[in-house]
């Protein structure tokens, strides 16, 4: 009764049904404004400026394709040798592949353990939280804390020497591709664990029992049932890990020394020289690469369904 009264009251206040619908627009307007101002506008500006000229001191608003030519300068002429841009992309791609395969393997293993081997629901939540807590602390500090582990006098070298596995301290453990990927695994494995665990939680016990009753072993059930049902989670985790690694400049800078290059680092260096149009052109190329990657992976997942 009351509801009907209220409806009438509302419809009297606002003429037509549209008056009622204005509320969600008011609610969402501030957020939309934030994203238009601080995400959409900056990206549009980046694309615009990537076609601008520049001098030592300033941006010159004059259309040019030179920045893009600079990005790929000599790339066709030098083939089969790799130009600078291709070398940087190849280096970034290798980091992506290494970080992706390791985070996927470890993340899947951890999620599988939590979902199928930890029996109490409370224990599952507690152990998942244990994996999540470092995510809420500083990435810089987490990366930094790996240094005494991997350094020349670090714990890992001491351990290897102590076990007699190596005769002298190994230098490739720090400021190398190895240390960069180690840091990525440290930082980003959680990005795999959470979505894969969520997918696994949706798998009904009955399906697994049916697979068991049909004579499948744990391994066959894993390959034939669990992994296909986790496709969405794996895709989402992969998107987050790959995009995080693709644009990274902090971890590569801290853990790679001067040895390891990445697209993010190239952009950072160009920005520090105030070669902003050049940085913008590199950013647009990076953004395009990331978008292609995400669109490819998103076909495997319905992101919205996962909430």
């Amino acid at each position, binding site marked *: 009764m009351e509801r009907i009264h209220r409806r009438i009251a509302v419809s009297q206040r606002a003429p037509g049904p549209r008056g009622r619908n204005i509320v*969600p627009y008011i609610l969402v307007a*501030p957020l939309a404004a934030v994203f238009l101002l*601080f995400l959409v506008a900056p990206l549009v500006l980046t694309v615009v400026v990537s076609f601008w000229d520049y001098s030592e001191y300033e941006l010159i608003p004059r259309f040019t394709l030179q920045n893009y030519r600079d990005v790929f300068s000599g790339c066709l002429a030098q083939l089969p040798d790799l130009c600078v841009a291709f070398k940087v992309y190849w280096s970034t791609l290798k980091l992506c592949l290494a970080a992706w395969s390791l985070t996927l393997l470890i993340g899947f*293993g951890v999620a599988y353990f939590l979902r199928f081997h930890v029996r109490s629901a409370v224990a599952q939540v507690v152990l998942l939280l244990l994996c999540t807590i470092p995510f809420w*602390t500083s990435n810089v*500090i*987490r990366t930094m804390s790996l240094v*005494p582990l991997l350094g020349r006098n670090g*714990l890992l070298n001491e351990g290897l020497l102590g076990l007699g596995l190596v005769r002298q301290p190994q230098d490739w453990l720090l400021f190398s591709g190895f240390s960069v990927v180690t840091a990525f695994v440290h930082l980003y494995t959680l990005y795999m664990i959470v979505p894969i665990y969520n997918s696994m939680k949706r798998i009904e016990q009955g399906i697994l029992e049916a697979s068991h009753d049909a004579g499948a072993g744990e391994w066959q059930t894993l390959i034939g049932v669990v992994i296909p049902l986790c496709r969405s989670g794996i895709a989402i985790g992969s998107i987050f890990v790959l995009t995080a690694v693709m644009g990274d400049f902090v971890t590569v800078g801290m853990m790679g020394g001067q040895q390891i290059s990445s697209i993010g680092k190239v952009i950072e260096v160009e*920005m520090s020289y105030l070669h902003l149009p050049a940085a913008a052109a590199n950013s647009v190329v990076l953004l395009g690469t990331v978008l292609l990657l995400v669109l490819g992976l998103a076909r495997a997942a319905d992101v919205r369904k996962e909430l």
Partner: protein
Amino acid sequence: MNGSRRSLSFYPLAAVFALFVLFLYGPIVSMAVLSFQGPDGGLTFPMNRVSTFWFGKLMEGVGVVDIWGAFGRSLRLAIVVMVLTVVLSLATGLAFRRGFRGSSSLFYLLVSSLIVPSIVVSLGIGLLFRFLDDAIRFVGRALSLASLGEGFTSSAGLFTSALGAHLTWTLPFGVLIMLAVFNRFEKSYEEAARDLGATGWQTFRHVVLPLIIPGLIGVALFAFTLSFDELARSSQAAGDLNTLPLELKGLTTTVTTPEIYALGTLTTAVSFLVIFAALGVIIGFRSRAAVRGPVETGVVQ
């Protein structure tokens, strides 16, 4: 697989899990231990006596860097980001529940904010404020206002460009959490409240809000910690004065004493304090709800 007998994969996977947790926490713990090095101690083990010497050094400041200023700035920014993220995420969550045109576009815009490389966002915001500065100077000169003309330095700063950069990172998490909360929300409580004569505001204030408070605290936790530790997006958008993570990153290459560990330990302690306070409150709410039942918790004040 959940049968009474452990399947064969239990032991290797338990080992993987244990090693992973060790790998997650081991380095942080060893950093915390190393920050208590004696005055002659170095950056690696072994410990050269135990002291709080490096924390004392830290209190006096780190060389020319105003580390406590940076600490204060990051703290203030994180609090502002947290409040804004909670309010805007809640409003957006409510809007998504009612539905509106363009909701799925907005959803994808939010998700894309997490995926766009941070360095690109940072560059774009840097450019935006560069042009804004130019525009302000132009207007200042036209109106011959000294403060906005040649004397003007920059509109980029902690609570303009850095705040915006942080919000593009925290809001998607906040809204995703709110969407997940409302997806699991039992609508019948609201309907019951309406049927009992509650107005829209009363229903929200006394039924919906108490039920979603744990979710809101989760949003606050994400917003505060992500902002307090944010580095990549602020790198070109912090203005003249750096935030703590930016100073920290700079210090990792210049400071070669355990003082840097002391700073890292202190920052991590702040994060842990916030994390455990938030988790404690969430667990408190959950257990109260479990004892008294959700409706009662919500309505009886």
